[in-house]
């Protein structure tokens, strides 16, 4: 589904990604962990076609980025810690708008289905800015899957969520993942990383330094690997348990 070879991304003189090699097969759920500044967001934004690679090869579903970006966008859904929704518009209006720019046939029906899925039917006529952070994240996910993408990109989706909202999000993600979509998620929380993904990778200083199947991994294993590759205090921030 995704092939990345020697991906480099520089901003002027500083390098965010220094040669990333990664392969993600169809239906796989990959979590990428790493300290802040490692390049997780940059990597995801490149996959989402929001950033252009400086050099290197990126193929999504056989399509080459950046030349086939428009076609790739049809296949991806992107969720970040910003909701990408318009505060002044109602929940329903937000989804209707995205339905229109994604060329969804029968938009109203689809919006209805999504509102049921994410549990926001009751709030459909409320402006998005009146929603709690957890609900906004759910709206954001509804927005991201409105066109039934085959690849989901989630950039630290749990940021700012309390326990209850995080639980709801986890359930939602499980449902989505179960529909054999390919998912790439980033987080700096190691435990989350192991929750229900297939593979976990560590991104440090712009490179993928470690990759393993989750089935054979315990939290301690992962923590050890993390400390080994990332060290402690390299960014002054400890990975959470």
């Amino acid at each position: 589904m995704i092939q990345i070879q020697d991906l480099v991304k520089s901003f002027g003189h500083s390098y965010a990604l220094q040669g990333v090699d990664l392969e993600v097969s169809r239906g796989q759920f990959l979590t990428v962990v790493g300290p802040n500044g490692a390049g997780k967001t940059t990597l995801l934004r490149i996959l989402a076609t929001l950033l252009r690679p400086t050099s290197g090869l990126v193929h999504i579903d056989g399509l080459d980025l950046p030349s086939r970006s428009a076609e790739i966008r049809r296949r991806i859904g992107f969720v970040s810690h910003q909701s990408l929704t318009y505060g002044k518009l109602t929940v329903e209006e937000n989804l209707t708008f995205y339905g229109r720019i994604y060329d969804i046939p029968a938009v109203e029906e689809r919006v209805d289905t999504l509102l049921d899925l994410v549990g926001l039917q009751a709030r459909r006529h409320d402006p998005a800015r009146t929603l709690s952070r957890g609900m906004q994240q759910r709206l954001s996910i509804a927005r991201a899957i409105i066109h039934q993408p085959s690849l989901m990109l989630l950039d630290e989706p749990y940021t700012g969520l309390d326990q209850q909202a995080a639980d709801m999000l986890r359930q939602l993600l499980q449902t989505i993942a179960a529909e054999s979509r390919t998912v790439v998620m980033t987080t700096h929380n190691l435990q989350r990383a192991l929750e229900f993904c297939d593979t976990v990778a560590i991104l440090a200083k712009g490179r993928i330094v470690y990759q393993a199947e989750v089935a054979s991994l315990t939290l301690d294993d992962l923590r050890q690997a993390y400390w080994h590759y990332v060290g402690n205090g390299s960014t002054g921030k400890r990975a959470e348990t």
Partner: protein
Amino acid sequence: MSKSFRIEDLLNWLSGLSIIVALYLVFVYAPTEATMGHVQRIFYFHVSSAWVGFLAFFVTLVAGVAYLRGGNRAWDILALSSVEIGITFTAMAVITGSIWAKATWNAWWPWQQEPRLVLVTILLLLYLSYLVLRAFVEGEERTARFAAVYGIVAFVSVPFTFMSVRWWQRLHPVIFEREGMHLAPAMLATFLFSLLAFTILYFTLLLHRRRLGKLADQVDGLKERLRTGEGG
């Protein structure tokens, strides 16, 4: 490296020489104008400076387009260099133009009678806006991109500004017109040579400024590598 150094050397000599010759022509060779007297000589500097101001802007446009096409930072360095030199010459054009206006119309800023002066001032403003934009954008790549786009937009606006200012006080539009300035052959020769001398000076300064820009860019790169401890 040594090859380009020779070009710069050559240009150094050429511009030095041509400016000296131009000064001689302007102050000694060219006849004194009948009505205005010696003040008229500033005309040669004024038009030459304005010409360089426009030329530099055009170079910025070309460099901007080239940057957007390829993403090569060298083009952005060239664009910025051209703007810095262009703005200097444009400022000179404004000042000399104002002196000329004072001598001709007895007013430092005769809006109605000297549309050229207004136009050159607007060009100066465009340059300033370009530099202000560069100063307020974060990130080198973004700065180069935004500056390139603004350079294109700004240059495209110049013909429109030129025409609208020209038509401003007239009842009927004129696209081209002959100015009522009769140049004796000696004056014409001086005029053309001044244009040439200033153009050579522009390119000389441009290459020097570009060289400085490239060095500064290299320094930035080294600083970044020191900071991160990684190769780039």
